[in-house]
């Protein structure tokens, strides 16, 4: 059983989820024996309002250079431990992200739909709680405040 192909990138600027998936598919076509039968993916975008309901000007994403990348690799490898999982893609924004912009993309290619869906879901939860990222909400008046945790599932 070949180890799953893990592709993980932090994006300091905007990324397009569909372009990211297209590039990943090209990579899989080269590295695997064609695209696997099941592909599950998730895209998270910045809401237009703060957790307190005010209009959001931007979301700032801080990370821990070095540890964040290593930790994402660990989390992806752990979530992809089912033998059916062939490949995992993670894209995650850092820096200033505007309302409506993609902030995270997780995609999993597997030989069966169950492992694809489970791995995608588990990895998303894992990175929300176990990868060192911190969000600050910025308002139009220039004030900002750090979030104390994540949105509920």
């Amino acid at each position: 059983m070949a180890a799953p192909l893990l592709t993980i990138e932090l994006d300091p600027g905007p990324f397009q989820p569909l372009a990211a998936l297209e590039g990943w598919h090209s990579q899989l076509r080269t590295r695997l024996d064609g695209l696997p039968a099941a592909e599950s993916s998730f895209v998270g975008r910045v809401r237009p309002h703060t957790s307190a309901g005010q209009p959001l000007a931007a979301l700032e994403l801080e990370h821990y250079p070095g540890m964040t990348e290593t930790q994402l690799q660990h989390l992806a490898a752990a979530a992809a431990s089912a033998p059916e999982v062939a490949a995992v893609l993670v894209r995650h924004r850092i820096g200033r992200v505007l309302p409506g912009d993609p902030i995270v993309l997780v995609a999993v290619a597997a030989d069966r739909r169950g492992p694809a869906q489970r791995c995608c879901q588990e990895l998303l939860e894992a990175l929300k709680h176990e990868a060192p990222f911190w969000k600050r909400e910025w308002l139009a008046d220039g004030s900002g405040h750090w979030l104390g945790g994540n949105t509920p599932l």
Partner: protein
Amino acid sequence: MGHTPELRVLLFAALRERAGWRERQLAATRGATPTTVWGQLGLEPADPAATIRVAINQRFARWDSPLAGGDELAFLPPISGG
């Protein structure tokens, strides 16, 4: 006596802003742990373990993990990724 490499201490996000600094070098005293360093630096809150996590050399660690000179110690406020 040789030169003892120092501890490097990092703060992030809300923790960094509250403390007013991002990084400090500190002599690694014998028996140092994240708990003793936290107290030594006078960081808030006094009982951090409920909300703050620690990483040593970029891996999650315990508040009572032993520290050695040259280690990178980071205090991490509640994570909100994804």
